């Protein structure tokens, strides 16, 4: 019950990789798992002939071949498939039959079908009961998606599918360097506020650096409102997310990459130190010590009630708070500020791709499945998805013309404003035990004034060094 709140962006790719890597190592030794079911066919026979000059049908889909699509009807429902993507597919290939299955419990229903070989062509492997990606990767049950990325975009002339995606999308679905998963939904992180409150009080909703942000906090404080805060009881993650974002802006995304790769002294990088120092100052001067004892829902409610101005979170916040948001409250997102000297512009954002789709290696209509994915990743397919679900997709700028809720709208603007400067980090999930959990504790210590920034980076550097030295932890290079 005091679990960290769900982070939709945190579909732990890295945990999957860790496991997949471990499986890869274990298979020769133990021959475990359903390796028997697939061992013989580990070399995928992929007969699709790709002709990228044929924009209409690069994969050579047979127009009468049936396509079996399985969608997880969760938070996004499965209407986007039945009413948009499948219809678009049918329009292209009128003779084909599309067999749609909306399945809640993916693993119990689809898992056995991987064993028998009667796999769907296209699978939305999502939800609590998704088929374990580690198993699928380890057993080589999935098709490589490289052809998809290299294919021409369906409705953006002159560009490949890869070109149309937000940076980081393909990487987020890669396992040991193999691109096997399409992550379709994008979560944007930033600092959230009530646009109406800011307008009414004349506060600056887009401070560009630390000094401007401090000035803003000073104004808010003078108005009797707590300027900034997060919930220490269960959501320390939200805060080190902010520190990471500032650090990446000051020192470039390479700073985060170094942390992910457990490089020596990475935590002691000037940018991390500066970011930690700044946010510790905000914690001591412009927050409320009591927040450490509150949960994320309680702090979010305080914001809805107007006693807290700025709150760090992801783009799910608006829909999470739907029930408690008064009509006068309009969610908007500002970029995490950066230091005086900055490598990335303040408009760069931390964002992650999630909601996984895969194509089984033994799909009968492999070409059709690739084409279906290409349809999803077309501007039209993505825009319609956003229209139906209110969520942003991995297709850059696809939702620009779509009318969405105010909060999503500002996330959308932030994302398109960032352009190529989109980054994320993985260490908190990759090394949750050795680094993620210590970071939560240390971040509370820092923000609520028990340690200073120097000590903070020292503690986390020591934790990272320990992980690096631990032979039992699978390391993941980025």
């Amino acid at each position, binding site marked *: 019950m005091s679990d960290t709140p769900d982070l939709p962006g945190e579909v732990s790719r890295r945990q999957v990789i*860790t496991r997949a890597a471990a*499986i890869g190592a274990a298979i020769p030794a133990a021959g475990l798992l359903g390796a028997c079911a697939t061992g013989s066919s580990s070399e995928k026979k992929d007969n699709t002939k790709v002709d990228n000059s044929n924009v209409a049908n690069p994969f050579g889909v047979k127009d009468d071949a049936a396509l079996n699509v399985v969608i997880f009807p969760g938070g996004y429902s499965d209407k986007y498939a039945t009413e948009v993507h499948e219809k678009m597919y049918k329009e292209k290939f009128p003779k084909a039959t599309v067999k749609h299955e909306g399945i809640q419990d993916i693993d119990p229903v689809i898992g056995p079908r991987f064993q028998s070989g009667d796999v769907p062509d296209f699978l939305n492997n999502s939800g609590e009961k998704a088929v374990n990606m580690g198993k699928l990767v380890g057993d080589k049950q999935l098709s490589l998606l490289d052809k998809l990325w290299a294919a021409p975009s369906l409705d953006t002339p002159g560009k490949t599918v890869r070109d149309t995606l937000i940076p980081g999308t393909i990487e987020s679905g890669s396992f040991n360097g193999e691109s096997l998963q399409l992550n379709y939904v994008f979560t944007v992180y930033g600092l959230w506020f009530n646009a109406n409150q800011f307008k009414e009080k004349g506060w600056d909703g887009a401070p560009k650096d630390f000094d401007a942000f401090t000035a803003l906090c000073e104004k808010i404080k003078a108005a009797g409102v707590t300027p900034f805060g997060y919930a220490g009881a269960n959501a320390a993650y939200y805060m080190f997310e902010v520190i990471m974002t500032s650090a990446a802006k000051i020192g470039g995304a390479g700073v985060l990459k170094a942390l992910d790769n457990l490089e020596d002294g990475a935590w002691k990088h000037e940018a991390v130190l500066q970011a930690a120092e700044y946010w510790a100052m905000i914690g001591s001067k412009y927050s409320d010590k009591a927040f450490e004892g509150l949960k994320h829902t309680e702090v979010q409610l305080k914001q809805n009630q107007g006693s807290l101005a700025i709150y760090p979170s992801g783009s799910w916040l608006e829909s999470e708070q739907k029930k408690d948001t008064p009509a006068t409250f309009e969610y908007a997102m500002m970029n995490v500020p950066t230091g005086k000297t900055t490598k990335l512009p303040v408009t760069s954002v931390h964002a992650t791709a999630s909601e996984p789709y895969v194509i089984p290696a033994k799909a009968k209509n492999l070409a059709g499945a690739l084409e279906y994915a290409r349809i999803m990743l077309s501007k039209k397919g993505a825009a319609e998805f956003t229209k139906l679900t209110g969520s942003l997709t991995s297709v850059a700028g696809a939702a620009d013309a779509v009318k969405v809720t105010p909060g999503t709208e500002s996330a959308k603007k932030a994302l398109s404003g960032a352009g190529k400067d989109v980054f994320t980090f993985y260490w908190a999930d990759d090394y949750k035990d050795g680094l993620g*959990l210590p970071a939560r504790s240390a971040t509370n210590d820092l923000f609520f004034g028990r340690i200073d920034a120097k000590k903070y980076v020292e503690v986390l550097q020591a934790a990272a060094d320990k992980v690096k030295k631990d032979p039992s932890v699978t390391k993941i290079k980025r």
Partner: protein
Amino acid sequence: MRHGKYRFVAGFLALPVLLYVFYVWVPFGYSFYFSLTRYRGTDVPPVFVGLDNFTTLFTDTPEFWKALTHNGVILLIMPLVTIVIALIFAFFLNVGGKAKGGVTSGVRGSKFYRLVFFFPQLLALPIVAVLFQSIYRPDDSGLINGALNKLGLPKIGFLIDTNIALLSIIAVMVWQAVGFYVVLFSAGMSSIPKEIYEAADLDGASRWTMFYKVTLPLLWDNIQVGWVYLGIAAFDVFALVDVLSVNRGGPSFSTTVLSMEVVNKIGAGNYGMASAMGVMLFFCTLTFAAISLRVTKRESIEY
């Protein structure tokens, strides 16, 4: 006939024993095994590493030592305070009142108090924890801090001040446990023959003398049982720490206990280490129970 009797007894025992073995001993066995392995994912087989996990635990896991220390602190404070309070309450409820016609009884309204004291025991531990979340909440909406604020006093960060967070949690444990031990000790006291109290009363013994010289020795068995129960509870505390503490055992690991660290390790996918801690917890509890039963052993008095 004899044979038939054994079969009868065995028939009754077989099923419970089987269930016990399957649901208690088998998981125990697994934990011991996993504690000797490196095991980080449910779909990867455990790798045997000998005592590596324990070496890491002892030499390179500060949170383990913190958790162990906190369990120790709880073990020292919580049973003692609970038993003392429960004894005092029970004494007043049963023999603390005025002697009427040579018959001692509890203070006025003792039946009502007994009910009130027992009430927290009726609530499940997580509910108690949620209740105290509201009581301890560090802002104005907290029961205590709201009142302090109205009185113009400074707020107390019950669960966010590293100096008092653990004590705040111990206080909840005591609050929750006292009722049960009041009832336990009351039952014990009511089985002490009234004549002994009457005799003491005639000899002019004060209430406190009666308590020390009569009640306490004759209640020793109950106190011993209570001590062991509370001691074992001191090694658990999971539900309270999980719900009440900040950031699962925080702030800054100031409230973490072994069971919390076990769960934290499981949550982080480090099953080998979690099992090693679980095994340590097992031995701690076992040692405590053995020692306390040995130490508190006394001749029981028959009357």
